[in-house]
């Protein structure tokens, strides 16, 4: 019995985000994508940490666990290893995932446990009322950094690629169609899927992504990655990314037709690049120097942790079909007292 409409995935819980929060749009997109996956809703699990974003599971009429700060990927690992048949989704924030939870995140990615991690990146701590996060831009003035933050932020996708994530993607709260495409791709991927979703916190970090989400200019500031296609952008797809040369891995933003540049010079994207160098290069692009790349950066196949664990158990069980406590206790050296 597969649930078929968005409504089936809504709960009766009053949604407790600030009016105008980007989380609403993401929720709507997720609720729209779920019915298209062909998975009965009782087989879908949402697990979150702590943060505004982490309230998400309450609003999904699936199984949900609102756990503790930063630990959702680890809890999800236990869930998935124990229940390989479930579709397990982790909802987390930039603080939850990359600050307190950074270690669990990279280990989940390394192990390639078949869970989907959606990280809502608002570049701020929302729930604790506005401290800077590991993705806040340097110099950010917040309650805890009145003279501006001095940390260099993480690029979340670079971190994920450094941990050898098998699926890495990025989208934006406001771009429902794009986001839903990315979510579907994540669902289809076998292995850990890491999806960064830029999310506007209109209370503590309003407009953080306006420079590339504004209607009029976004064609020039967004680069939509498509597998097998050249990395072109701009309203009329006249601009693109090419390599600096055979000895330089520095990318250049070029315009077709200028300085003899033709489409043949433009990097053709390959999301299956095994070394991960291509997505890594792309993860470093950002405005104002380059457009912000959105879409699926990487999607490769490698063995999943949950399969591995379960295969070993199955294997061992096949080899010892007659395992019993009796045999266990009486195995090895024993003696009789009479």
């Amino acid at each position, binding site marked *: *019995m597969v649930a078929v409409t968005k409504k089936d995935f809504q*709960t009766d*819980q009053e949604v407790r985000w600030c009016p105008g929060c980007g989380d609403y749009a993401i929720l709507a997109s997720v609720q729209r994508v779920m019915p298209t996956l062909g998975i*009965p*809703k*009782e*087989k879908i*699990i949402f*697990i979150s940490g*702590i943060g505004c974003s982490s309230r998400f*599971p*309450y609003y999904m*009429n*699936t*199984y*949900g*666990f*609102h*756990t*503790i700060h930063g*630990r959702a990927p*680890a*809890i*999800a*690992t*236990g*869930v*998935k*290893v*124990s*229940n390989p*048949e*479930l579709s397990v989704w982790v909802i987390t924030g930039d603080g939850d995932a990359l600050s307190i939870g950074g*270690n*669990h995140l990279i*280990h989940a990615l390394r192990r390639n446990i078949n869970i989907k991690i959606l990280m809502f990146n608002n570049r701020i701590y929302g729930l604790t009322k506005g401290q800077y996060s590991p993705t806040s831009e340097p110099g950010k003035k917040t309650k805890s950094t009145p003279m501006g933050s001095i940390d260099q932020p993480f690029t979340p996708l670079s971190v994920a690629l450094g941990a050898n994530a098998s699926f890495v993607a990025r989208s934006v709260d406001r771009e429902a169609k794009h986001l839903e495409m990315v979510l579907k791709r994540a669902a289809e991927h076998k292995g850990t899927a890491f999806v960064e979703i830029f999310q506007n916190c209109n209370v503590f970090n309003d407009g953080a992504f306006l420079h590339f989400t504004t209607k009029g200019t976004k064609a020039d500031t967004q680069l939509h990655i498509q597998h097998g296609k050249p990395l072109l952008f701009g309203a009329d797809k006249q601009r693109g990314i090419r390599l600096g040369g055979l000895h330089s891995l520095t990318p250049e933003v070029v315009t077709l037709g200028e300085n003899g540049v033709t489409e043949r010079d433009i990097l053709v994207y390959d999301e299956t690049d095994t070394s991960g160098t291509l997505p890594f290069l792309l993860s470093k692009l950002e405005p104002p120097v380059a457009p912000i790349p959105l879409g699926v950066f990487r999607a490769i196949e490698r063995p999943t942790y949950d399969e591995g*664990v*379960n295969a*070993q*158990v199955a*294997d*061992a*069980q096949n*080899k*010892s079909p007659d*395992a*019993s*406590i*009796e045999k*266990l*206790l*009486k195995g*090895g*050296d*024993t*003696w*009789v*007292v*009479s």
Partner: protein
Amino acid sequence: MTASPTQMVNLPRPKGRPVDLESAVIRFSGDSGDGMQLTGSQFTNTAALAGNDLVTFPDFPAEIRAPAGTLFGVSGFQLNFAAKSIYTPGDAPDVLVAMNPAALKVNLSDLKTGGILIINQDAFTPANLDKAGFTSNPLEDDSLNAYRLFAIDIGTQTERALAETGLSFKEVGRAKNFWTLGLLYYLYDRPLEYTLRFIEQKFKSKETIAEGNRLALKAGYLYGDVSEIFQETYEINSAQLEPGLYRNITGNQATAWGAIAAGQQAGLPLFYGSYPITPASDVLHELSRHKHFGVKTVQAEDEIAAVAATIGAAWTGQLAMTGSSGPGIALKGEAIGLAVAAELPLVVLNVQRAGPSTGMPTKTEQADLLQAMFGRNGESPVAIVAPQSPADCFEMMIEAFRLALGYMVPVIVLSDGYLANGSEPWKIPDVAALPKVKATFQTTPSDDFHPFQRDEDTLARVWPKIGSPGLEHRIGGLERSYETGHISYDPDNHQRMTEVRAKKIEGMARTIPDLKVYGSEQGGDILLLGWGSTFGAMRQATQIGREQGLDVSHAHLRYLNPFPRNLSELLHRFKRVIVPEMNTGQLLMLLRSRYLIPAEGLNKIEGKPFRVSEILSAIHGEKNKSRGQPW
């Protein structure tokens, strides 16, 4: 005098009639590289097969392989074996084997006056003596006069025995421990068969080494016979153990097996999330070898991930267990609180070691009881049980799961390094009679379903099987409404839920056995009350004390939260209550607070178990070197 093995199938029995003894305590000691743990466990198993009762106490250094000859590289294995019931590895060895000066230095003070001291004199070189801090050679001064010294050129003897095997110098050196074992087999009139079988299996693919070890073992035995150095040899008859099939088992092994058995009893797959740490790692190792029981082990990135993954498993209906030692348990505190709030069945194993902080990782202690009780934020009650001997770990693990599943709460199991590595003969239980462990899942929707619905009797919340259609629900660490299961900040509800969480634990007392008294059941002068691995020393001291005419009794708590229901009444039957603990008075604090009785502490924090004599002298009212604070 090397002899071919075929020649030697039948070895001579010791000459003359061996002296009959009730029990004996042997300590093997040497460098980490000397193989003393192996020697000890070979002697143990041989004694076990002969039907002796026995208790062992391995004591290894913190270093993996400390540089040869150093004091901190000394490894020891003590073994008490007897023709009667015994409970401890023995206060003081009757026989000390010291393979080098460092081993002598570290262990000599424990040897009984007049005890047998077997020394590998080849190792008493100036360099080694120096490393061990001797200023003169004890074999040459008078410092060992109080003992029956047997300084033997064990190295040379082994070399001679193995001269024709073609083994390298290093390999020959490694066989010394088998030579020594052979000598002790002679001294205690033991058959070599068990060890010969062991050698055969262990060195299956290395026949020359197997042959060398066999030769060494036999040569050591024959040396005893031929050299006639021992004026007497000893015999220790089999003990009057309850009839049945027996095996030898260590605490960590029993712990792992108990968890496997609980899984089988409950019909649930066992999930073990852990991160390696001394002295708990062996539980992970053991469980990972039993995948054929459906056991899943996850070696997580840290202790927090380990407990978190286990919580995920618990939520979805597995038999869920995490384990560590004290420092790791400290890290798990916040997550255990989540399991309390979300009311999940979770077993948390703490194989305690000496603290605080990194402390002395290879040494034992029982100083994490109050951490188990209170080591989380908020009012966060959990159940606590503690096995009292290596084999008891098996039963208490099953109990832990029974309580966790029956009441939907975390249960902490407090083992310790002494239980974990120590061993004892264990009468293999009747599998059919093992206690039931019952998981009650909800799998079908009901009209009024919510995830915090409760059993009226136990107050356990329902355990909806994740994946069942119609039971979709959301839980978490925020306070919940008793009525609806939704998040609630209502003041009265918080009060009520706090009480419910406490009552679940208290209610367990109805299902746990009353505490039994060994000794004067009707009450008397002194009650020794303990928990955990102090059992053996306390029981033995009580036996001896009673034989000496003292009115002393012993009771041992295997359930620490909640306490057995009869505890209060029982305590009041005795004039004095003495509480021996390897901490500064943790159970003591709980008892005094709860029952307002002037219980007295007998406390020792030395990283090693109580001696029987220490407890005896407390019973006799002697002033102890350390008396516990009330807390």
